C-alpha cells in the first residue's frame, strides 16, 4: 500500500439493486495532497463513488480503502470516525435552513468539539474569511444566492480541517465569475491546508484548470480513461475526445435508440 495514496477504490462493483449495476469493477486511486477530478456524463456513477467512499452504502464486491483502512458500511463507529476526517460539499449546499450562515459553519464545531464560544467564533469567522463571506455571517440562509450558498457550504465542510474534501458538482449552475471563484478556492484551499480534494463534475474546462489528475467515467460504470489534464487532452481515444471536446455525436450517441425515421413517419423505403 502506497502511503502516497489516500483513497484506493479496489475492483469495486456496486448497484442499488440487483437489476442496475452502477459501478462495474472499477479501480481508482486518489493521491494525498492532490486535486483529482472525476469526470463523466450523467448517470455514470460519479456521485455514487463519493457515497461509497463516505461509507453510505456497502459495496457489492471489491473494497474501498481510506488511508489504509477498509471502509465497512455496517460499522457505525468506524464510519463516524472516518467521516470526521472528511468534508463533503453537496451540489446545492445542503445548508441548514433554520440556522444563520454563522451557525451553519459553527455546526460541526459545536457538535464535535467542546471549544468555547469565543474560540468557535474566531474559527468560524476565519473559515468564512477564507471563502470571502465573513461579512455575511449574520444573514439567514434564505437571503443568500446560490453561489454564496456553495461557498458557505465549503466553509462548513472545512470547519474541522478535514484531510479529504469531496465536491459534488461544485460548478453546476454557476455564472462565470462564481465558477472562477469556486475553482480558485478549491485549489487554494487544497494547497494551503495540504488536504486531498476530489471533484465530481462534468465541467471539463474548469476542472482542468485546477486538477492534478483526472478520471473519466463512462456510462456502464467503467473507467474510460485517466491521466493528467494534458494527457487526456492529447488522448486519441474517441470516447475521451468526444467528452473533452463536447462533441454532440461520437461513441456516446446523439439519438436515443429508435426505428429508422422513414419507418416512424410511415414513408416507403
Amino acid at each position: 500500500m502506497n502511503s502516497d495514496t489516500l483513497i484506493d477504490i479496489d475492483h469495486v462493483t456496486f448497484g442499488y439493486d440487483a437489476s442496475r449495476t452502477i459501478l462495474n469493477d472499477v479501480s481508482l486511486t486518489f493521491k494525498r495532497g492532490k486535486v483529482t477530478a472525476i469526470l463523466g456524463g450523467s448517470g455514470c456513477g460519479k456521485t455514487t463513488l463519493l457515497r461509497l467512499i463516505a461509507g453510505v452504502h456497502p459495496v457489492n464486491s471489491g473494497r474501498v480503502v481510506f488511508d489504509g483502512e477498509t471502509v465497512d458500511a455496517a460499522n457505525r463507529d468506524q464510519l463516524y470516525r472516518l467521516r470526521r476526517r472528511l468534508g463533503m460539499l453537496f451540489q446545492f449546499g445542503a445548508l441548514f435552513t433554520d440556522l444563520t450562515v454563522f451557525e451553519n459553519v459553527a455546526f460541526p464545531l459545536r457538535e464535535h468539539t467542546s471549544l468555547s464560544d469565543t474560540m468557535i467564533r474566531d474559527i468560524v469567522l476565519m473559515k468564512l474569511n477564507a471563502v470571502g463571506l465573513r461579512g455575511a455571517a449574520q444573514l439567514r440562509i434564505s437571503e443568500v444566492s446560490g453561489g454564496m450558498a456553495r461557498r458557505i457550504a465549503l466553509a462548513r465542510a472545512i470547519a474541522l480541517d478535514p484531510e479529504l474534501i469531496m465536491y459534488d458538482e461544485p460548478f453546476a449552475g454557476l455564472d462565470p465569475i462564481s465558477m472562477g471563484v469556486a475553482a480558485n478556492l478549491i485549489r487554494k484551499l487544497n494547497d494551503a491546508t495540504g488536504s486531498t480534494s476530489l471533484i465530481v463534475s462534468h465541467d471539463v474546462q474548469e476542472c482542468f484548470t485546477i486538477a492534478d489528475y483526472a478520471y473519466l467515467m463512462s456510462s456502464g460504470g467503467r473507467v474510460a480513461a485517466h491521466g493528467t489534464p494534458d494527457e487526456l487532452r492529447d488522448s486519441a481515444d474517441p470516447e475521451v475526445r468526444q467528452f473533452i471536446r463536447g462533441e454532440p455525436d461520437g461513441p456516446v450517441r446523439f439519438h436515443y435508440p429508435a426505428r429508422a425515421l422513414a419507418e416512424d413517419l410511415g414513408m416507403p423505403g
Partner: protein
Amino acid sequence: MTAMLQALGARTLRWLLSLGHAATFFVDLLRNVPTALRRFALVVAQVHAIGNRSLVIIVASGLAVGFVLALQMYYALVKYGAAESLGLVVNLSLVRELGPVVTALLFAGRAGTSLTAEIGLMKAGEQLAAMELMAIDPRARVLVPRFLGGIVAMPILALLFSTVGILGAYVVAVLLIGIDAGNFWSIQQSGVDIWRDVGNGIVKSSVFGVICTFVALYQGYETQATPEGVAYATTRTVVVSSLAVLGMDFILTALMFSTP
C-alpha cells in the same frame, strides 16, 4: 380471480412491510432519547416551536367549544330540571374526552403538518444526509428533540383546552344564562374525580401526543423528496394521526371508564 388474490396478497405484504418499517423507526427514536436529552436546549426549542406556537388555536378552540357545549347542554338539561348540573356535564365532557381528543386533532393539523413538511423538506434538501456525512446522527439531533417536544407539549395543551373550555362554559352558564355561580362550581367539585377523570384525561393526551408526533415525523422522514411527495405526506399525517387518535380514544375510554 387469481390476479385479484395476488394483488390483495401483495398489498397485504406491502402493508406489513411498512408497518414493520414504522415500528423499527419508533424503536430507533426511543433508543436515541438519552442522547437527545443531553442536548436539552434542543428539546426546549422544540417545545417552543410545537407548544407555544399552537397556543392560539388551542385556546381559541377551547373557548369556542366551552361556549357551545354550555349552550347545547343547557337546552337538553333544562327539560329535566337539571340545569344546575351544566358545569358538571361540560367539565366531564371536556376533561375526559374533548380536551384530549380535540386537542390531538388540532395538534395533528397544525403541529403535525408543520413537522412533516419541515422534516420532508430537510430530507429533500439533503440536510439530513449532510448531517450524516458530518458524523452527526440526524435522528438524535433533529428527530428525537421534536418527538420529545411533542410529547411534552400535548398534555399541557389539552389541559389548557379543558380549562379554557370550563371558563367559557362559566361565562355562558353564569353570566349569560344566570345559573348560580356557587352551584356551578360546587357540583363540579363533587362530581369530578381528580384521578379518575382528570388523571385519565392526562394519560390520554400523553398517548395521543406520542401518536401524533410519531406519525408526523415518520411521514416526513419517509416522504419522496419532491413537492408532490411532501404535499402527500402532510395529508397523510393528518389522516393517519386523526384515525389513530380516534381509534386509541375508543380503546382507552373502554379501559378507563368502563365501570361507573
